[in-house]
């Protein structure tokens, strides 16, 4: 009764094709946006913005990218970290080679460069499927990280192999990168970008391209038989997915950490993002962000939990116990809801729709 579509009549095609057709959903999203844009910057401390909100948004974007590839197009990939690194280093090279470029252009261009790399590494997916492909994508992961480590050109020959973001601003005066940028400015910049890109992704997956991806995911041979071109569909998925991962990598390097070394994007990063996708829900835009929130918050919770109970445990023991608890929770979540948090959200909505009746 609380949440229902009854009584809402659509009188135009536009209304029929809206992303959110139910009024409560629209209120919810606008409320969420207002909260994210107005309330969070006003009430959160610097710690919250920089250690929780920024990684959450950026990794959520990466998870969205991987979800497009794995959840929608069905191509399992473990190369996310490598693509994020590509985005970060492309942004660094662009920003240092053309200092007058706007940061938005730098970040989007680095996404496009990552797209190209993604297409290159996506070509084997035409022959290789399933877990063979997953292991094969590890090739891109290790190769890209090795490349950025090995060749000084990518880091402008810095001795430590670490790249630092030059200070850059939007609207001519508001600094968003570099040591003098305020956390609020960084947060709002990332949030705006993430919201816009999420909107694009949402529209992509419910368009012609998205339907092709899902057909390929569900059964690629059948998809090919009904006339969906395998080559371009799979490569499009790799391109779009790597674009998102590249943008996320650039944001990570420029706005979150400020300076970054290739090791920040090692294979553990790929697994982390894959966890977000699985925990959040395969094939769901919202799931990517739910999963990102879960995976970003969980370690922070686990690290702080012993202090709340007044326990004093050695630091290395804590980190080992963290590993254990993390593993157990992952397995627990998979057993309880293999379709992820997005599915739980759907079940809740369904319950609210019927409430107070059982069916």
């Amino acid at each position, binding site marked *: 009764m609380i949440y229902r579509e009854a009584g809402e009549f659509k009188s135009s095609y536009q209304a029929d094709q809206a992303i959110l057709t139910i009024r409560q959903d629209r209120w919810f999203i606008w409320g969420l946006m207002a909260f994210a844009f107005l309330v969070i910057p006003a009430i959160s401390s610097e710690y919250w913005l920089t250690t929780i909100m920024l990684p959450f948004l950026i990794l959520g974007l990466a998870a969205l990218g991987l979800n497009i590839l794995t959840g929608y197009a069905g191509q399992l990939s473990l190369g996310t970290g490598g693509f994020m690194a590509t985005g970060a280093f492309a942004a660094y090279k662009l920003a240092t080679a053309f200092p007058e470029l706007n940061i938005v252009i730098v970040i989007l261009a680095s996404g496009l460069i990552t797209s190209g790399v993604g297409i290159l590494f996506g070509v084997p997916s035409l*022959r290789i499927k399933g877990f063979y492909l997953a292991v*094969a994508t590890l090739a891109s992961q290790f*190769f890209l990280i090795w490349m950025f480590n090995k060749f000084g050109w990518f880091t402008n020959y810095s001795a430590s192999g670490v790249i630092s973001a030059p200070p850059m601003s939007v609207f001519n005066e508001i600094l968003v990168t570099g040591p003098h940028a305020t956390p609020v400015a960084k947060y709002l910049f990332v949030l705006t970008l993430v919201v816009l890109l999420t909107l694009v992704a949402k529209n992509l997956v419910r368009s012609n391209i998205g339907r092709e991806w899902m057909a390929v995911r569900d059964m690629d041979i059948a998809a090919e038989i009904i006339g969906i071109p395998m080559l371009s569909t799979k490569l499009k998925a790799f391109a779009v997915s790597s674009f998102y991962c590249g943008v996320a990598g650039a944001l990570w390097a420029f706005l979150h950490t400020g300076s970054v070394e290739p090791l920040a994007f090692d294979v553990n990063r790929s697994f982390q993002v894959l966890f977000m996708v699985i925990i959040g829900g395969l094939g769901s835009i919202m799931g990517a962000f739910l999963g990102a929130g879960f995976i970003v918050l969980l370690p922070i919770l686990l690290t702080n939990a012993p202090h709340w109970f007044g326990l004093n445990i050695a630091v290395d*023991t804590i980190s080992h116990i963290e*590993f*254990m608890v993390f593993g157990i929770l992952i397995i627990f979540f998979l057993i309880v809801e293999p379709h992820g948090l997005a599915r739980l959200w759907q079940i809740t909505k369904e319950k609210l729709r019927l409430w107070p009746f059982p069916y």
Partner: protein
Amino acid sequence: MHIERDVFYIILASLALMVAIPWAAGMLSEDIFFEWPFFFEVAIGGLLAGVMYSLVALGFVLIFKASGVFNFAQGAMVLFSALTLVGLQEKGLPIWLAILATLAIMALLAYLIERLVLRPLVNQEHIILFMATIGITYFLDGFGQTLWGSEVKILDIGFSNQPGFYFGGKILINDFDLIAALIAGVLVVSLALFFQYTRIGRALRAVADDNQAALSVGIPLKHIWVIVWTVAGVVALVAGIMWGSKLGVQFSLALIALKALPVLILGGFTSVPGAIVGGLIIGAGEKLAEVFIAPLIGGGIEDWFAYMLALAFLVFRPQGLFGEKIIERV
């Protein structure tokens, strides 16, 4: 064993390339030292290192064959078994008792994994089970190190680690690697016998072939899974002993799983001989590339070369060299 004709040609071609490319590199570049005894020394060293990769890949294959689970936790199992063995030894147990106790612990672990992780997730998609094994990996890494500490431990089982000269003193081979290869050979042969001639082995092969058909003729799947994970645990222990006494027992042992993955896809997920041949090709290819090609492109290529090599093979054989032919129906 029956080998398909294209697999035979692919292996022949790769052998030829493995000889031709280093030779050409030696001819063309001043930086590369090439001499036939040296080439064979590197190649044999690589083949023996490859056997060590096969040991880890074998565990993956066993579990994938019997249950269709891509068990990412194999590396963690190697680390865990080695840590347990060393930990028990430090408690004062004689080595044979420590090995037996570790075997019992691995069997218990297999039972718990089947009961607590696999059974609730039965019939889920492969990727979900894959993620669950990554969860097991995290758990085992943390658990092993909480229990036994995280400092590097030395595992000494009395094998010499001296290099010896063979073939008239021209080729230098590490004795330890030879022993490792021998042990791996014994392990593979005994596994093959176990699969071929025992009742349980027959059941395992039936399950690997078609688990629903196996279930319908009365083979208890859950017991089979426990057995298969136990066997994988035994393989992990052997790998843990060999790798642990080579590198010391430490966290990086868990990362050799990443070394075994290219072996796995090259040989095929479902084939025991594939794991061996894949290991030999990857081991030799990697070592040869490291010595004869890496100096030309900046070095340090061992992280990714094996993956690229496996990828090149996969383009010709998408199911790996010895994997089951992928038949798709609409």
